[in-house]
């Protein structure tokens, strides 16, 4: 009985800690604005990114040379996006407010990847400029 209680409480709190941890990583990227170039490449209008673009953005990020400092973030946010997808599907019939919250979180994840893409493109451009100047 005690073990069951501990198990249930721990799983619930684990989810809460994990969600907050992922949001703390996403929040740092939320402050960055997307460049015109990335918006053109991805086809984004304004500063909002559609959550369904997450997969495509991740593919584009993988094509860019790594700056080396965002791999862990991308993995954590990928897991979070997947979790929010499950929550959105599970809550669709029972709790529409939860569904819309999960959808906003997924959009936040997509925005995070768009900012990561933006940074990698800027990094690639700098690398190219450096190579050109070396010649």
């Amino acid at each position, binding site marked *: 009985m*005690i*073990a*069951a209680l*501990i*198990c249930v*409480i*721990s*799983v619930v*709190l*684990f989810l*809460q*800690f*994990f*969600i*907050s*941890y992922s*949001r*703390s990583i996403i*929040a*740092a990227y*939320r402050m960055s604005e997307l460049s015109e170039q990335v918006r053109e490449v991805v086809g984004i209008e304004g500063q909002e990114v559609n959550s369904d673009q997450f997969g495509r953005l991740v593919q584009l990020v993988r094509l860019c040379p790594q700056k080396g*400092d965002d791999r*862990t973030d991308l993995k954590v946010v990928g897991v979070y996006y997947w979790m929010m997808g499950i929550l959105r599907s599970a809550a669709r019939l029972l709790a529409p407010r939860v569904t819309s*919250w999960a959808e906003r979180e997924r959009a936040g994840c997509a925005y995070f990847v768009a900012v990561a893409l933006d940074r990698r493109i800027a990094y690639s451009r700098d690398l190219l400029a450096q190579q050109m100047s070396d010649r």
Partner: protein
Amino acid sequence: MLGPFDYVLVLLGLLAEAYVVVRLCLSENFLRYFSLNIYMLGVVGVTIGQDFALLKFGVSSPVYAYVYYYTDALLTIALFFVIMSFYQQVFHQMGVGRYVRWASVFLLSATALFSYLVVRRMPTHHLTSRFVVEMSQNLYFVGVVLTYLLWGAVVKLRETRTRLIQLVLALGIFFSSDAACYALRNLFPGLEANFLKWVPPLAGTFLPLAWAYTFTKIPEDARLETARVALPRMAAHQHS
């Protein structure tokens, strides 16, 4: 017998722990995060000791089991002191550090006593081996509760230090996953072989990696609104 994945996890964990200590020393923050550094050094020592016992006695030997569980319990207790140091950072301006210390000593003693009383009522099990598993489950759970209360205080007091926020949340993930794992082991021992055996090493590697990430990427003066991070219900309490 351990597989290559186990060794990768052990190595990653060791590197991250050593990295955190070196980084904090170089940035002259060793004393500021004193408990955390002692814990990290303790984990390095315990990991080496556990591996020595493993190589000398084998994974299925009772000696290795005792070394594993007792050192694990000691590390969990050391981690309580890390939580207390975070409490002191959060409540620094309120001057309640003395009460926090007494509360932690009381909680530790109560946990050990409770575990002993639970195990004493089970005559079919060997007292000491059963005691240590029971106590680990309870210690991790007390860790979860303490971390959750700390997180509640962080949200309520509108603590904005990004480093502290991420350190506390990573600790919460570590404690809650291990507490759930130990509780599931008590409930369904059959799950141990296939699934549950991976949770403690994964959580044990996650914690130093997450802390290494925080100390590397988040500057000491970085700030973050907790309302952006906490779940909507907690954030609503913050504003009330």
